[in-house]
């Protein structure tokens, strides 16, 4: 495995059925957290990064970085495109610029991915505490 | 509460009162014979006009189409807004005002009853939700039924009584007031992007013609004993040469009229009084239409007067709106409603210097002046299609004063001016005729027994205008007449003083009127109907009707049907 591997990718955020089911169960539920603290990647990209499925990875953009769990995408091929469902994890990364129309940029954001096996995946409370200093 | 309106010049045409100086007594929201003079609150109306509250037979003020128009036109609102006061809610204008503003503006002009003429049955709840937010004025709406699949199918099979029962069910379920037809047959045809071209063109897949739909629903209207006639927006609307269609439409129900009673209302007639082969050769068809109407008693109509202003056109006539988009290149909204109807919106600017627009302006006034009987033609702008309703005082001035007409005529397109019939018309209406065309006639045509007059037992909806008919000659002093009608000195609604010198004093909720059509046997929900429901609509039968829960102030009117 290659500790220095970094991958330049394009980040998309969006809906998944698991996220939809999870949010109806409750935003504090495990189902919700498990559905939105993940990153779907092309298997090729995982190989290039040198990590296995379900490993922790660190995703960074100009706006922030966050640890999420890497998952193999079933919707391949989409090399160099990563997908994180809407939620607090994705929001650390997205572009707040609204271009004067009120709408931030949630899709198509340049990002960098690297393995983060030694970094923990935060739960909702920890993440909020880290980001906003409140609990 | 008791109220006494003293010493005004009363115009109450339905009771034969023509400018008599008299008092009007009000108690518990109704007109009464007399009240205790010492206890009653008195309004001094000396030197002023006293009329029943205004009635508008056709004005798009609520519902999905109107709201799409509001959404479409932020630029229309930026220039015209009303801040919140301790009494009133804030809002915006201009051509498609927000709900609160709509109520206030009508009330300021002395109007107290307004009919929204186009409600897609599937979206009826929307209309009623907006009605709840339109203060002061009483409202009702006409469901669009001319292209409803049930109607097309039952009429084609000649099952007129069953059709009538379904229409009764529909009017009651949507809390509607009258049968509205818009480009009958044309809207179903628009479902695949086409249109019908005349009364005898077949509707694809349905094997029925517009003539059969109009005649069928006219018969249904009679079977159900509805207070208003069928309310018809003709085929070919907005096309040169369409005055023929308008006359034919009236002709096609001639034999269905009984005892000289009206059987059909042709709405915004200006838009279907075009002569000529194309826009270049466009001419007024008003004389032909006026001749027909003067010779027959089964038709009423409203003007659909054009105002030179920036406005927003909106009708259920999808193909017409598309044509208007192609003509103007302006932004265009289309909204077809499954199984029922369609709709479209296009912003439009009527310009004085445009030949076509100036001809249209002239046609509206010609119709109103050439039709001799004011009980047959009513003042509307088809708000906001011809222009916003706040322009009514301008129209009153044009109708009452040759000089006012001349002043505008001087400024319009010269070719249109030279062809206009207006210079040849000397007729100037009086206050009594204005009272007929703006309230009494409209209330009568609508069959609203408690509106449009000041007889004992009528709703105490009263408008007082600050103009003295004894000292003011409207023909010369048309500007003071215009001013007076713009801001009522007082508007009284259900016996409450709601407006004083154009200022809102009270935010009261107006009622929603609707017909509770009672058939001989209560309508049972047949299996056939349930099956059709599943097939035709994408909502469940149980969720379709508008329950009374949606009407904050509900005023049902019971109608006993003959089927």
């Amino acid at each position, binding site marked *: 495995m290659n500790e220095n591997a970094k991958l330049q990718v394009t980040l998309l955020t969006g809906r998944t*059925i698991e996220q939809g089911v999870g949010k109806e169960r409750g935003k504090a539920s495990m189902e919700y957290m498990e559905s939105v603290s993940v990153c779907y990647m092309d298997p090729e990209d995982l190989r290039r990064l040198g990590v296995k499925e379900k490993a922790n990875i660190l995703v960074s953009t100009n706006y922030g970085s966050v640890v999420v769990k890497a998952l193999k995408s079933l919707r391949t091929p989409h090399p160099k495109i990563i997908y994180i469902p809407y939620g607090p994890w994705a929001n650390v990364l997205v572009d707040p610029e609204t271009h*004067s129309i*009120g709408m931030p940029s949630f899709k198509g954001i340049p990002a960098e991915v690297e393995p983060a096996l030694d970094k923990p995946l935060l739960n909702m409370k920890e993440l909020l505490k880290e980001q906003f200093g409140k609990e | 509460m008791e109220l006494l309106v003293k010493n005004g010049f009363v115009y109450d045409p339905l009771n034969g009162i023509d400018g008599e100086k008299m008092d009007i007594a009000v108690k518990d929201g109704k007109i009464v014979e007399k009240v205790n003079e010492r206890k009653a609150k008195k309004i001094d109306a000396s030197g002023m006009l006293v009329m029943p509250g205004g009635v508008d037979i056709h004005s798009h003020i609520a519902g999905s189409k109107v709201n799409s128009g509001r959404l479409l036109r932020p630029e229309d609102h930026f220039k015209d807004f009303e801040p919140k006061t301790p009494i009133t809610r804030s809002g915006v204008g201009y051509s498609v005002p927000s709900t609160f503003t709509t109520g206030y503006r009508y009330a300021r002009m002395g109007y107290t009853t307004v009919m929204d003429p186009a409600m897609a049955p599937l979206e009826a709840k929307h209309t009623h939700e907006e009605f709840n937010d339109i203060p002061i004025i009483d409202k009702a709406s006409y469901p669009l039924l001319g292209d409803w699949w049930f109607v097309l199918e039952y009429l084609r099979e000649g099952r007129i009584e069953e059709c009538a029962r379904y229409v009764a069910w529909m009017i009651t379920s949507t809390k509607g007031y009258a049968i509205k037809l818009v480009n009958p047959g044309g809207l179903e045809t628009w479902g695949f992007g086409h249109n019908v071209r005349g009364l005898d063109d077949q509707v694809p897949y349905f094997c029925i013609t517009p003539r059969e739909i109009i005649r069928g629903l006219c018969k249904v209207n009679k079977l159900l004993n509805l207070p208003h006639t069928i309310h018809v927006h003709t085929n070919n609307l907005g096309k040169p040469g369409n005055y023929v269609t308008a006359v034919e439409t009236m002709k096609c129900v001639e034999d269905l009229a009984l005892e000289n009673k009206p059987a059909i209302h042709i709405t915004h007639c200006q838009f279907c009084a075009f002569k000529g082969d194309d826009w270049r050769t466009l001419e007024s068809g008003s004389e032909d239409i006026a001749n027909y109407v003067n010779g027959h008693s089964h038709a009423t109509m409203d003007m659909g007067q054009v105002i030179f202003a920036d406005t927003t056109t909106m009708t259920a006539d999808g193909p017409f709106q598309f044509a208007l988009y192609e003509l103007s290149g302006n932004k265009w909204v*289309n909204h077809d409603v499954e199984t029922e109807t369609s709709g479209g919106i296009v912003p439009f600017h009527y310009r004085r210097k445009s030949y076509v627009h100036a001809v249209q302006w002239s046609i509206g006034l010609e119709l109103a002046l050439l039709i001799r009987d004011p009980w047959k033609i009513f003042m509307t702008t088809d708000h906001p299609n011809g222009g916003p309703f706040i322009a009514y005082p301008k129209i009153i001035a044009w109708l009452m004063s040759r000089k006012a007409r001349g002043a505008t005529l001087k400024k319009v397109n010269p070719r249109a001016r030279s062809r206009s019939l207006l210079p040849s018309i000397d007729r100037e209406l009086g206050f009594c005729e204005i009272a007929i065309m703006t309230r009494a006639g409209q209330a009568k045509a609508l069959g609203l027994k408690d509106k449009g007059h000041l007889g004992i037992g009528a709703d105490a909806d009263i408008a007082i205008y600050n103009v003295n008919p004894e000292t003011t000659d409207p023909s010369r002093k048309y500007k003071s007449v215009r001013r007076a009608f713009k801001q009522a000195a007082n508007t009284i609604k259900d016996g409450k003083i709601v407006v004083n010198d154009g200022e809102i004093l009270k935010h009261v909720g107006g009622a929603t009127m609707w017909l509770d059509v009672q058939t001989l046997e209560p309508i049972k929900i047949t299996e056939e109907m349930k099956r059709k429901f599943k097939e035709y609509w994408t909502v469940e039968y149980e969720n379709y009707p508008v329950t009374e829960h949606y009407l904050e102030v509900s005023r049902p009117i019971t109608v006993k049907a003959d089927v």
Partner: protein
Amino acid sequence: MPVVKAVTCPVCGSLCDDIELTIEDKEIVKVKNGCAMCESKFLNYNGKHRIRKPLIRKDGKLVKATLKEAVRKTAEILAEANYPILYGWSSTSCEATRVGLELAEEVGGVIDNTAVVCHGPSLLSVQEIGISSCTLGQIRHRADLVIYWGSDPWSAHPRHIERYTTFSEGRFERSEWRGYVAKIKASIGRKKIESVLRRLFLKKKPTVPSSYLEGRVCPTISREGRKLIVIDVRRTKSAEMADYFIQVEPNKDYELLQAFRALIRDQELDVDKVAGVPVEYLEEVSDAMVGCNFGALFFGVGLTMSRGKLRNIDAALSLVRDLNTRTKFIIMPMRGHFNVAGANTVSTWQTGYPYAVDFSLGYPRYNPGETSVVDVLMRKESDAALIVASDPVANFPRKAAEHLVENPLVVVDPHMNATAHMADVVLPSAFVGIEASGTAYRMDHVPLPLKRVAEPPRGVLPDEEILRRILSEVRKIKRKKQVAAEAQ
């Protein structure tokens, strides 16, 4: 066991109203006709994440309070603020939004709904171009071509295709469900044969030409009946159902849309590929667009959120408008939350504007980019916030959420969500559409009634009622202030 029929599902913008709920001991035990999200909501709404008592933050911790205290505290926060934000509204009833607007006007705040981070750009585009649209039944009856662009109905609107489009049964068009099942069976059969062959010959797996990128000949769309086309940056689950899938490169939707506009006017394109898609494929699709009897284009946030934002929608709306000179074509945004369309609708009828309405000058002002909530937060202008039925801390970019969390923050919600965790006052509310009735607007603006099928927890009120109480409390405080000012 009582069964309640024709229940409207309060989850997504499809607003399916044919749900049947079985109720036992006042609890929903069975859901019929619903999708996975619908079942999850009706069966789990009352779980352990429910807020049952009002909470107020004291010494940094949220502690239980009475409803009266919480309403009073909320009213104080709002009455004292100069420029409060009132945000959310798309997961509650129109009746609640109506009160919310009155409250916003009373406190001179800015009221915005979740459309701002969803289909806000679509609304802006409609204001520029207009929109050729219809109700969903019209598509069920007539559409012989359905396109989903930047939208994955299988995941976000699971029953959309079955109820309203390709797999629904219409008067003039039949359902394509059988054809789809046959296709799936054939594909499973093919896979089996392939695996047998693999084992027999011990060869490497035969390459399955899964996409056009491998240089396969362009397939034609010649099939009779309803056709389904999916255009997306990813091969979504919906894409797998489609007759034709076009994978557009991220952030290049605008180019593709404009290419289609040129093609439907019979113009030739002088390039081989647009947005990574060979031109022959685009010609094939544009022929299908022009050749259909009734086409429908549904677009999702894939278009509104990626580069170009409202300009993408401008192009899509213009494409469909242009198509109407050749055939009948309609376009519709796939609205996410069950009543986001209703929130826009009510806001429009009361103020003239669909979202981002600013009452600070006493009348409605609208300028998305200035009066929209993310921008207000990024400029750090707001000094209080009331969030109703939404979770902006989980949905806004972190930078925007940061200022929100610094504001005195009130949350009205049935569930404990990320925003509620950060709040100063939390008011639990009844679930609209389960414990409270009301009205919601489907994505095509058809209003549908929401039913009350269960009792809310004791003492928990619907949003509408909570807002009314806050409004009356705000008015009391303001009146007192006025009296005090006059006395001085």
